[in-house]
């Protein structure tokens, strides 16, 4: 990487600034050219996959992406107190120059990354990762005055279970509860030639994100398909299977409780054989994945993508998840290992997609219950709202920070109270950007995100 500010660096930073509140109008003229040059190449074949990484418990994203320019860093440090990462420890993202002792817009926006994430830094520098600042569930844009008046707010702010649902659901306060990944699959199901297998595959069990009105996610374990022992291989086993299937048929015609298990078990048997055969026949991936919980899930996603042709899939949505982020205690001690796992896992996954020739075709994105208080409760942080997220993959217009990075001043204009950042980008806008790339039409997006038109822009253009 260049050791001095280049025109390209400057363009990257100014693009980020374009999403901010205090954009010098003159920079906007430069923006168009910068984006056009970074446009995505054609995908390999017609295959696209979205991979959602859900960090359960509320990841402290404001200790992932940290302002590096000196004045904004000082604000961050003043609000975070004993939980602030040192300015010298964060990995410089925008350039390797020393921090500039001023604040944007007088100087370019500068950011640093948590020191446990060097792989993510490399992806960012290579234009294969971008950050999106201050995303959270919103039913419409809100101001600090709205928050203080308790109006226009999503229900049960700061509750884990509710804000997880709001991140996953297609509209923050909607009922019935369906996910935006599921609604997308409902509308795009015809893209896939195989009607038996769901577009949506989970490596982390049940989740709302992938559930649609006609879409039910299919669950794989990290080792692939779990097959029924004792159900095939000889005459006795075949007879047993035949009786078992008759029992399932009876159950499926019975009360709804039993029918559900009957249908689930039938699907497990039928799809298990088909998916297992496809996974077995798929090319072997040589990229080595970390063997931790996230790495093994991402490895399984990669194996499934490698089997896409046999499976008859041209659009897929994957769900993986990771726990341990609810760090009310020991944030500085426990956060680094979690972030290191993410950084290594994402880098391996990106390399595997390149190995499969799908570098431009697969985009991963992060999600989490909520951001955390910028203020400290001693040695950890509490539940908050807006958060920093990131997207990776060859199609990502990387090397940039999108959205509007909040003013981190304690009790400042973006603070709902005690360092809870009021989101300036809605989950709807974040999701719509991803699904537009995935192939959803504008009218699909209005169906999937009924509140989308309430926001100033229908997307952020990061992919």
């Amino acid at each position, binding site marked *: 990487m260049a050791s001095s500010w280049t025109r390209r660096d400057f363009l990257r930073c100014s693009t980020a600034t374009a999403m901010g509140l205090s954009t010098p109008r003159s920079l906007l003229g430069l923006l168009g050219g910068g984006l056009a040059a970074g446009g995505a190449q054609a995908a390999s074949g017609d295959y696209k996959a979205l991979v959602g990484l859900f960090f359960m418990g509320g990841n402290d994203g404001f200790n992932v992406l940290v302002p590096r320019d000196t004045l904004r860093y000082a604000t961050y440090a003043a609000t975070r107190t004993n939980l602030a990462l040192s300015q010298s420890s964060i990995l410089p993202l925008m350039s390797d120059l020393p921090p500039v002792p001023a604040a944007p817009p007088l100087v370019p926006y500068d950011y640093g990354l948590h020191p446990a994430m060097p792989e993510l830094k490399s992806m960012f520098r290579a234009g294969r990762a971008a950050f999106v600042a201050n995303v959270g569930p919103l039913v419409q844009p809100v101001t600090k005055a709205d928050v203080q008046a308790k109006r226009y707010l999503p229900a049960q702010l700061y509750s884990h279970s509710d804000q997880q649902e709001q991140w996953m659901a297609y509209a923050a306060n909607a009922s*019935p509860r369906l996910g935006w990944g599921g609604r997308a699959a409902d509308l795009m199901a015809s893209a896939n030639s195989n009607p038996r297998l769901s577009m949506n595959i989970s490596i982390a*069990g049940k989740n709302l994100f992938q559930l649609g009105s006609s879409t039910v996610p299919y669950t794989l374990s990290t080792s692939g398909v779990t097959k029924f022992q*004792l159900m095939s291989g000889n005459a006795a086993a075949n007879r047993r299977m035949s009786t078992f299937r008759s029992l399932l048929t009876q159950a499926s015609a019975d009360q709804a409780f039993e029918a559900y298990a009957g249908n689930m078990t039938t699907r497990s048997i039928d799809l298990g054989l088909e998916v297992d055969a496809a996974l077995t026949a798929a090319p072997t991936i040589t990229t080595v994945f970390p063997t931790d919980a996230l790495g093994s899930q991402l490895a399984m996603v990669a194996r499934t993508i490698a089997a896409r042709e046999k499976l008859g899939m041209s659009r897929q949505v994957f769900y993986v998840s990771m726990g341990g982020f609810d760090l009310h205690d020991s944030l500085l001690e426990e956060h680094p290992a979690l972030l290191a796992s993410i950084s290594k896992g994402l880098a391996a996954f990106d390399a595997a997609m390149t190995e499969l020739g799908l570098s431009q075709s697969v985009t991963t994105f992060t999600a989490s219950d909520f951001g955390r208080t910028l203020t400290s409760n001693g040695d950890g942080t509490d539940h908050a709202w807006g958060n920093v997220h990131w997207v990776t993959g060859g199609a990502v217009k990387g090397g940039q920070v999108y959205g509007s990075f909040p003013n981190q001043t304690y009790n400042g204009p973006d603070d709902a109270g005690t360092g809870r950042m009021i989101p300036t980008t809605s989950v709807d806008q974040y999701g719509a950007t991803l699904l537009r790339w995935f192939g959803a039409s504008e009218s699909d997006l209005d169906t999937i995100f009924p509140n989308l038109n309430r926001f100033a822009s229908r997307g952020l253009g990061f992919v």
Partner: protein
Amino acid sequence: MGNLSKAAASAWCLVAVLIAACGGGSSGDEDGGDPSPSPLSEAQAARLLAQGTFGPTRAGIDAATGRTAEDWVQAQLQLAPTSHAARCRQLPSDAGAIDRNSRTDAWWQISLTAPDQLRQRVAFALSQIMVVSDQSDLGNSQEGLCQYYDILVRNAFGNYRTLLQDVTLSPQMGRYLSMQGNSKPDEAAGRRADENFAREVMQLFSLGLVQLNNDGSAKRDSSGEPLPAYTQTDTENLARTLTGWSWGGSSGYSSPVNWLDPMKAFDAQHDTTAKTLVGNVAVPAGGSATADLAIALDTLYRHANVGPFIGKQLIQKLVTSNPSPAYIARVASAFNDDGRGVRGNLGAVVSAVLLDREARLGLEANANFGKVREPLLRQTHLWRALDAVPPAGGRYSYRGAQSELGQLPLASPSVFNFFSPGYVPEGELSAANLVTPEYQLTNESSVARAANRIFVSLYVDYVGNSSSAASSIKIDYSRIGAYAGSIDALIDELDTVFMSRQMPVEMHQLIATHVANYSADNGGRARAQEALYLILTSPQYMVQQ
């Protein structure tokens, strides 16, 4: 009960609902909580034991048949608690440590064999409401977790107020939800009180998210939105009220870690300013950590939400996932007043849960009656009903539950347990707005894993099989196999102990046809295995009604 009789029960219930609707909506109390006490039939005894134990056994069914349900519950309420910590300490590792195997081996032994089955079953339910987990640094002291479980066992029939305090001050909960070491705010240093326990004790252990009527329905504002039970300010103030607690015994505020003694007050770290709690309860300035804790816990204990919130969850864990509002109200009323003016008597609540007419009549009282059996309880049921014996040395050493069943006591991924009481699965159940919490664990992968665990339990780990590992818990086919001379008699016996005689006739016939391919040789083992495998992997068994 076959399909036909289930359908008839549903039709009967529909008529009953229509009559009630035409009558202008009865509160349900006129039906009374308890049906007139009458001796339990064998099938009724099996149903009661499925709800109130870790699985009916033949001996248990015989002992309960002919008694009333009330008799059985009353007798269970009197039994002395079996201690997990005591058993845990008798099961050290080869290196002498109390490790995770000590804890889980003790849990399997007690759950499978202890006489105080109802108490243990309620404690297990409580362990999924007041959740701590060894998927955290709590795993550093499995002995401490055994003691935590004993809090739940000890208070299962005691008073909720005592339970809440014992849980609150346990070092396990203290550490898990970070009330331990929660210091008074320091504005100069920019430090606030830690909101973790304050929020979750209200959301999960006492009030729930929204204000409730006694029947568990949400109170709503004029535009129909549910009214939140508490505000962010209430959470912040409770967090400040609960400052000043840390390691107990002779430990200091920060060290050494003490996993075995209840937390103790350190008043120098307590916020003594005035606070206002949920419901506008005042905590005056100048109070000690202990005095403020008492006000805080009394406030939660007295809140009108606790009866319906905790009562409904106990119904869901023991009896049925979608109880009628009237059933919830009857249980909540037992919480509010046990009949002798005592609030929070959990023994009275458990009695109300099990003796309610809806619990006893099932589908005849509620067309949506039933619950999904959770994975751990299917495994305990299998071993209890099939006379399982421990390996030589007596340790019930089954260590595969987390990977094979997806569930292990005190080992959930977060304080939100393995599954949520409000989980609604997709499809027909969603359309009917029926919750089935346990189905949150059920997916294409888990059903196959569960079936494969049943395969091992039935076809590998039985007494007399030389290829079963020496360390395995083994079932004993000698009693069940004796029925196998008559296929119908065999299936009827399995129907009784596993399905409370509710097996549909078509299911019985299918299994009988299949089993007829096997001889009754070898003590009837092959016939028993085939019938059991089909029953225990079936959706019909998965649903407890």
